[in-house]
């Protein structure tokens, strides 16, 4: 049921995820943070099987933190995404695979480019200009096809994101009420109020 969106713009990546934690038809919580800050310039929105998601996100977070401590600089977004993808692919072929879908947004401080990766629980990874997971993707992908601009400033990017969220609220039967939005750019990661 989780919904997550992400889109790139000029020098930034926006990542948004709903904040609902549900079990069956019951909402248990409405302020759950489903976007992890993996390193100073890397964000990860995770969705999927409850429990698996947090477990896997923390596993990734700590491994990337260890790499950062060992080598003084963090993994670049492309390398981190490859490592995470491989972890999922190995997990898929194990006795207890993780059912976790991810959106990885990062800013590469070496090449000064924003990067976004769409990863699913089967270990598929693609570099995309915008992406979404969950029921929201049925609405967001067509909207972003029309309104996404990779050269857009932050305000325009937020406007495109708002369109997606509004459309989901309007059309989806089980639409979530609240979203958390985070942005990563050359200055690092910060949260934004919509």
């Amino acid at each position, binding site marked *: 049921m989780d919904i997550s969106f992400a889109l790139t713009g000029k020098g930034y990546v926006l990542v948004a995820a709903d904040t609902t934690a549900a079990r069956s038809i019951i909402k248990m919580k409405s302020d759950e943070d489903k976007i992890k800050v993996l390193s100073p310039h890397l964000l990860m929105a995770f969705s999927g099987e409850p429990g698996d998601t947090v477990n896997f996100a923390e596993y990734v977070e700590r491994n990337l933190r260890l790499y950062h401590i060992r*080598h003084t*600089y963090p993994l*670049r977004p*492309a*390398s*981190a995404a*490859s*490592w995470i993808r491989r972890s999922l692919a190995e997990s898929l072929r194990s006795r207890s695979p993780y059912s976790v879908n991810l959106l990885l947004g990062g800013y590469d401080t*070496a090449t000064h480019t924003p990067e976004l990766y769409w990863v699913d629980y089967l270990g598929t990874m693609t570099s995309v200009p915008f992406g979404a997971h969950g029921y929201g993707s049925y609405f967001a992908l067509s909207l972003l096809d029309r309104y996404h601009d990779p050269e857009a400033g932050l305000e325009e990017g937020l406007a495109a994101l708002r369109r997606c969220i509004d459309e989901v609220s309007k059309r989806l039967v089980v639409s979530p009420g609240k979203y958390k939005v985070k942005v990563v750019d050359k200055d690092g990661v910060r949260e934004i109020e919509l």
Partner: protein
Amino acid sequence: MEAISHAGTVLGVLAKDGVVLAAEKKVTGKLLDMSGSKEGGYGGSGEKIFLLNSNVISGVAGLTADANSLVNYSRQTAQGHLFNYNDDIPVELLVQRLCDLKQGYTQYGGLRPFGVSILYAGYDPHYQFQLYHSDPSGNYSGWKATCIGANNGTAQSLLKQEYKDDIGIDEAVGLVLRTMSKTMDSTTLGSEKLEFATLTLDADKRPKAKIYKPAEIDALLVKHDLAKKDEDAEMRAA
């Protein structure tokens, strides 16, 4: 350590748009078959200068058998990184991994340490071009220009005098060849005594390692006026 100070000189210079490595080959003889090194592979005779990864080349001084084992280890390490992270290994990381291995042999009894010093020339997006040196104890350090092997003191002081901070790759090639010709025991420079390699960026800003083939080394020496025939002319003039 002792073996290294007798080994063929290996010299490295860091330029702003590339890195240069040169090495003196000690074991040569008329009967040694070098025909294999003329064409095949990626150049060089594969005695002292090796390609470790697409972004790192190394020059080794010391026991050749130990060096081969270390080169093999670092190639595997680099490919392991590529497998896990889909990206070339950062140069310092590769140096660290090799030094961890070398250090291990100084710590446990019963085993002999690797008798090898290595110069690494590499490129990565974090620190651009880099030049590192590691010794048998597992110490490593980064340099702008350095030298290992026989006569390394002489070469170091020559480099210290002549090195400039914003040196370009062409000047660096000249500096390396000149220093090499002054420090080597033999009076004449030629491809049978010398291995040479550069690391630069190609048109797509990807690292490009070039290990010179014997014919290319001779051509380079002629270009820099350090080739053999030079000496005969001097003799006649004197």
